């Protein structure tokens, strides 16, 4: 199964790349989860949250081509149901358009009928990413604050 998510964000490819790969910035719009990696092709990445002593997700960086393209496997670890789904694949593509960027997130290699939790968060994540880059602020909708931490609200 494949899911496609697209958004236009008024920013540069470099800033967008940083917001996706910088742990601190990522936590501001990704349900409070930080991401950590050396960002080398073939290397691993981990997603963690200060309120959880286990990892929320992990995977491998298959292609790393800043500031245009990032392909990763994703293994969700936040609960037993999503753990059963195994690995899927996420492709981030950044294409500059005028003063903005067209960002496409393709989430594929999902099992047919896969748990919606795996991909259902993308609209909220991308909306928060847009708000962060365009206004420097955090989304304050109840859903986006649900997992926020005191440090990620700063």
């Amino acid at each position, binding site marked *: 199964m494949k899911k496609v998510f697209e958004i236009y964000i008024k920013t540069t490819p470099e800033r967008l790349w940083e917001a996706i790969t910088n742990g601190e910035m990522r936590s501001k719009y990704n349900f409070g989860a930080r991401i950590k990696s050396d960002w080398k092709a073939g290397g691993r990445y981990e997603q963690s949250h200060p309120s959880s002593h286990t990892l929320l997700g992990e995977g491998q960086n298959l292609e790393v081509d800043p500031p245009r393209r990032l392909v990763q496997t994703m293994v969700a670890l936040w609960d037993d149901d999503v753990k059963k789904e195994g690995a899927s694949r996420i492709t981030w593509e950044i294409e500059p358009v005028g003063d903005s960027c067209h960002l496409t997130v393709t989430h594929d290699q999902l099992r047919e009928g896969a748990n919606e939790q795996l991909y259902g968060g993308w609209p909220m994540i991308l909306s928060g990413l847009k*708000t962060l880059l365009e206004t420097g602020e955090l989304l304050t909708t109840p*859903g986006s604050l649900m997992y926020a931490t005191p440090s990620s609200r700063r």
Partner: protein
Amino acid sequence: MNDDALVFKALADPTRRLLLDRLFERDGRTLTELESAFEMTRFGVMKHLRLLEDAGLVVARKSGRVKLHYLNPVPIRLIHDRWIDKYTEPHVSALAELKKELENER
């Protein structure tokens, strides 16, 4: 027309809402699969799909010789964050407060 207006306009039509629902049920469908649900010409369904694509609600991807259509729910989320959450949140939190108070009285 700005982005929000395009989305509202796209959502204002029952055929287009039904198209979104069909894609929500299952993503990655061809025009032929989609048009079977409508008593409308292929051209008519194509026109509605084009409007949904213009609003960013549907994304088309080539797969071999066919064009597959995917639902992109992000613009709806943006409308939700901008136009819906703001107005519904106070009610939700007021009810949550009331529940807490009533339960504490017992």
